[in-house]
């Protein structure tokens, strides 16, 4: 479904330097039982965020009031494993609009782009720059400009460009989704299907 347009996002950053964060950590399978898309943010990183009694674990970053923001930066190979889009719903629902990592799992990245969370792939060096800056000063802000395809650490001006294909970029900027596009091709698809029978 349509989502908020994404243009320039300026925000503080929540750091999660762990590598290989799989979608079972982002949202465990037992929280996938809904038939509607709501309330997933409450269970984002559930088992890292809460103990078995449901009390917040103090050492987990989402429970640390020092850090907040609309940008999540994570270690490499973020979002591996299951194709569950619920993982991105949880990230979006919690309030993040952009996830930064030096490496994303494939399906997760696609799912992000399909619901309006911008996945920004940076070099490992630039990820380290952001991690260090945020550690030194949690109020450090990062600017993500989709049109220019740049990510900038505002305190120092250090910047890097990122990739996104032109089609997805237009979608993100306008809040369009793929179905809007595909429905316009209905006749071509019907003809194609006939050929394949």
């Amino acid at each position, binding site marked *: 479904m349509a989502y908020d347009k994404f243009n320039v996002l300026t925000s503080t950053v929540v750091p999660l330097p762990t590598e*290989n964060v799989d979608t079972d*950590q982002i949202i465990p399978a037992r929280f996938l*039982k809904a038939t509607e898309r709501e309330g997933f943010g409450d269970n984002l990183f559930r088992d890292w965020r809460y103990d078995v009694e449901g009390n917040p674990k103090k050492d987990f970053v989402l429970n640390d009031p020092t850090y907040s923001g609309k940008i999540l930066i994570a270690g490499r190979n973020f979002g591996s494993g299951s194709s569950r889009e619920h993982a991105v719903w949880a990230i979006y629902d919690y309030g993040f609009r952009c996830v930064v990592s030096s490496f994303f799992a494939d399906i997760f990245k696609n799912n992000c782009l399909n*619901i309006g969370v911008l996945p920004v792939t940076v070099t490992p060096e630039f990820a380290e720059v952001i991690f260090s800056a945020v550690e030194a000063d949690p109020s450090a802000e990062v600017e993500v400009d989709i049109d220019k395809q740049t990510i900038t650490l505002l305190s120092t001006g250090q910047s890097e460009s990122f990739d996104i294909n032109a089609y*997805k970029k237009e979608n993100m900027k306008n809040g369009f989704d793929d179905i809007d596009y595909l429905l316009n091709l209905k006749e071509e698809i019907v003809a194609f299907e006939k050929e394949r029978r």
Partner: protein
Amino acid sequence: MEKKTLFDKVWDAHVVKSVQDGPDVFFIDKHFIHEVTSPVAFLNLEKRGIDVMFPERTVATPDHNVPTIDQDKTIKDKLSRMQVEKLRENCKKHGIDLHDLGSAHHGIVHVIGPELGITQPGMTIVCGDSHTSTHGAFGAIAFGIGTSEVEMVFATQCIMQSKAKKMRITVDGTLGKGVTSKDIILYIISKISAAGATGYFVEYAGSAIQSLSMEARMTICNMSIEMGARGGLIAPDETTFNYLKGKQYAPKGEAWDKAVADWKQLKTDEGATFDKEYNFDAEDIEPMITYGTNPGMGIKVIGNIPSTEGMEGSNKKTYLKSLDYMGFAPGEAIKGKKVDFVFVGSCTNGRIEDIRAVAGFVKGKKKADNITAWIVPGSREVEKLAHEEGLVKILEEAGFELRQPGCSACLAMNDDKIPAGKYAVSTSNRNFEGRQGPGARTMLASPLTVAAVAVTGEICDPREVF
């Protein structure tokens, strides 16, 4: 003429249109759905006021959160029940074939698709489940998608998809005794890492792969996603055709002959190039087991857990966090570690051949006292065969508990959970933290190794246990 890979041939035949500087409009032949990733897609479809375009191209079954006991009764868990009921309601409303709980072909979606002959060479197949890669064993392009894409397939039978890069993994030689296709794939992932094939579609080739049965090939393709690949595929051959012949949805008569002639073209042209190639020797592969919290963290059952030498920064931190979760120390041997549960099942190893392997191994033996042993067939058909072949009797005499078909303890959405802190050796596909229940410690292995562990009660080498 342009040299094409198998992947190119199947991909190119399904492109409706290429978007400039963007993805392809990619046509999907078969769409599998289950209760967990489809309800929101149906809901959004209704919000838009549109119908399923080609309902006959979608097949449904509830598998992820169904109980594995008392399947003839109402599902006790309210949320699970609602999801299964929603699936029934949606299938009825949109005219979609449903293999419901209790029906003759109910089962894990990636087990019933091939079993019914729905999965065929040259097809494009998607499902809101990353293990859709299983179907690649037939020379199909099959991969997992998110719920937004499930909705796209309902609405237009297409998704917007950029063509992946191409990788070939060749395994030549003869497998040693006690070494299975599960060991091949765990070995490959341990070599190239859990992210080593991200961005690629993998073709598996070589004499060791060609020698495998369809079931064994499915195990390999199933776990392609565990090294980050979108999917994996194997060129169809006589083994494939023999498996499919006579299956319910396979072509019949003249149509069969024509299909086989077409399918025989589905192979990589000599001289076609890949973006990346790996070569492995089957003789180097031994029974494998994972010791950490991603499937790339695998070693020989007779090996030692890697030390932290050469690791630094977040890499070392992540590694130690993983070992801490598992209760293991760097450098120690894995053999001899006590185990609490064994689980045989899942879309990776829940097929009849897997049950046969376990039953063949435990025949006349008893499970160790410290072990709880669950065996969950991948489908009703597998369950039926296991009964007919006398395997259930053997397994029950050995102390295994046979449950009804479903995804079960592979992802523990239902009640089949491994308790916190306990060790499970499992034939499934993921050893992520909490995957088999909060705090559960999972070690992945082949059905043979799992059978040997069930008998000895600890991590052991199946080649040493008779």
